[in-house]
């Protein structure tokens, strides 16, 4: 993922929600009469206002208190205490107010779920036990909402990668009957190692848009991205890592061997790809944008014209987040409404800590997610293979799968191809802000 720090320039939707009825006490569990309310990840201000607006609950925030100063018995004199880092509020309010809150669950507001607070009998240190019980309660609540089973997590963790990378397996690219045959895929990056043994015999068009450099990849980034999108069915050394192994490759060098480039070369690369009839244009590059910053009108026009011409542009969302502390906005040019923005997930189907999120309005959202953590693919000789992480690695998974869809139906071009990718994405238990419609799936 290219970025330029010097450049001037959601919402969570639970797949399964808690019931809409006021929580009732369970016979086997002793409860305190208070409730735990799980709030959507977001600003404390938004969540405090939601509690106030929905049920008139007076809320204190954990950040109002110095470390350790929160008195959990009195909630600091308020009716609810919001734990900002957990996005959980403990509510102690009259029944009409807690009922109003429970009816708000699943409606269009930040209140995701609610359950009675359990009594935890102290065995050792009272504070520790309270926190443990509290954590268990929160975990139970989030598990219930998110629907992630322990089985799923352990299955994901034990993926065997001896023959196929985890990315090919979880996207079903390895199970697809399609190969990308007859489809032209452009990857605009640092070029390709044209002598890499895994690309021998492939139809490759190489073009440099960088002055004084050939299309040969002197960086490694481009060879890795092309490997994921179009790498071989039978690489010199297993596992297989490439999606559309019979696609025709257009390797456009728009970033130099030192990894730098500019709009002029990238636009020239897009123009070249469209002129050559590439159905998919993969761009693992971007520049950081600020929260609230708009998108480039020029790239948006270009992307619309590309779609009309039957070319889909897929771009990396960016790697500037430092989750959970900070979610950075989707970068330029992936933030254009007509460019498919790709986030990165890991093999346990968790959002990558670095993956940018859809926090800017007006098109700056994530559209889809791809495998982007510990991704094995090709690099220039003599190393041949390497694992890398980034939205740069997630993007060519989506581009390769787009080629499979394009091969499966000649009507899937431009926006129809976009729609097919989105419609078939596997829903994840993650906010659309982070992963759009979910994990890309091969036809």
């Amino acid at each position, binding site marked *: *993922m*290219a*970025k*330029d720090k*010097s*450049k*001037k*320039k959601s919402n969570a939707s639970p797949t399964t929600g808690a019931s809409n009825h006021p929580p009732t006490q369970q016979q086997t569990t002793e409860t305190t009469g208070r409730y735990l309310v799980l709030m959507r990840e977001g600003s404390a201000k938004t969540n405090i206002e939601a509690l106030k607006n929905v049920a008139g609950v007076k809320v204190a925030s954990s950040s109002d208190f110095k470390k350790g100063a929160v008195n959990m018995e009195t909630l600091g004199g308020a009716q609810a205490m919001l734990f900002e880092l957990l996005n959980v509020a403990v509510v102690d309010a009259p029944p009409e107010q807690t009922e109003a809150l429970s009816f708000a669950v699943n409606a269009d507001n930040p209140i995701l779920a609610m359950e009675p607070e359990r009594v935890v009998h102290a065995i050792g240190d009272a504070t520790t036990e309270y926190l443990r019980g509290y954590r268990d309660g929160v975990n139970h609540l989030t598990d219930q909402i998110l629907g992630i089973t322990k089985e799923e997590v352990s299955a994901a963790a034990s993926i065997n990668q001896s023959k196929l990378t985890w990315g090919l397996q979880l996207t079903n690219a390895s199970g697809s009957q399609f190969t990308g045959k007859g489809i032209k895929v452009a990857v605009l990056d*640092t070029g390709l190692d044209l002598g890499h043994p895994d690309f021998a015999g492939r139809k490759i068009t190489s073009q440099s848009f960088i002055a004084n450099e050939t299309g040969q990849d002197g*960086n*490694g*980034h481009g060879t*890795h991205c092309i490997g994921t999108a179009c790498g071989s069915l039978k690489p010199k050394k297993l596992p297989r890592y490439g999606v559309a192994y019979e696609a025709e490759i257009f390797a456009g060098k728009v*970033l130099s061997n030192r*990894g*730098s*480039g*500019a*709009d*002029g070369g*990238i*636009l*020239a690369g*897009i*123009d070249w790809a*469209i*002129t050559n009839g590439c159905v998919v244009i993969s761009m*693992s*590059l*971007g*520049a950081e944008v600020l929260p609230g910053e708009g998108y*480039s*009108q*020029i790239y948006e*026009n*270009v992307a619309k*014209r*590309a779609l009309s*011409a039957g070319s889909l542009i897929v771009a990396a969302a960016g*790697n500037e987040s430092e989750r959970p502390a900070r979610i950075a906005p989707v970068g*330029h040019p992936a933030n254009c409404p007509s460019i498919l923005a790709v986030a990165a997930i890991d093999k346990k189907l968790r959002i990558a800590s*670095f993956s940018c999120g859809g926090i800017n309005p007006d098109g700056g959202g994530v559209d889809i997610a791809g495998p982007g953590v510990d991704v094995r693919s090709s690099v220039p000789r003599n190393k041949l293979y390497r694992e*890398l*992480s*980034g939205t*740069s*690695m997630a993007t060519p998974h989506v581009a390769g799968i787009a080629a499979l869809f394009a091969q499966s139906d000649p009507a899937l071009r431009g926006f129809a191809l976009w729609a097919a990718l989105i419609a078939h994405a596997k829903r994840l238990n993650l906010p659309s802000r982070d992963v759009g419609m979910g994990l890309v799936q091969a036809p």
Partner: protein
Amino acid sequence: MSKVNVSVADDHLSRFSDVVARCRKAGMKVEHEMESIGVISGSIDDEALNKLRRVKGVSHIESESSFQLAPPNSDVQ
């Protein structure tokens, strides 16, 4: 001189080369003419930018942004 990218308006795409000629006349040093995406790239003196903005058929002008990959030894790309 600033590097700029110029987007040609939808209703002038069929007369792309005319717009390129008018941009040159307005002082733009044209480097790439990209007809399939309707973009002209090049450079222009800052003082001439206003003149370029008024060229018939030009819809947007943006200054060029640059991109830089993480160093090759970085694990996150």
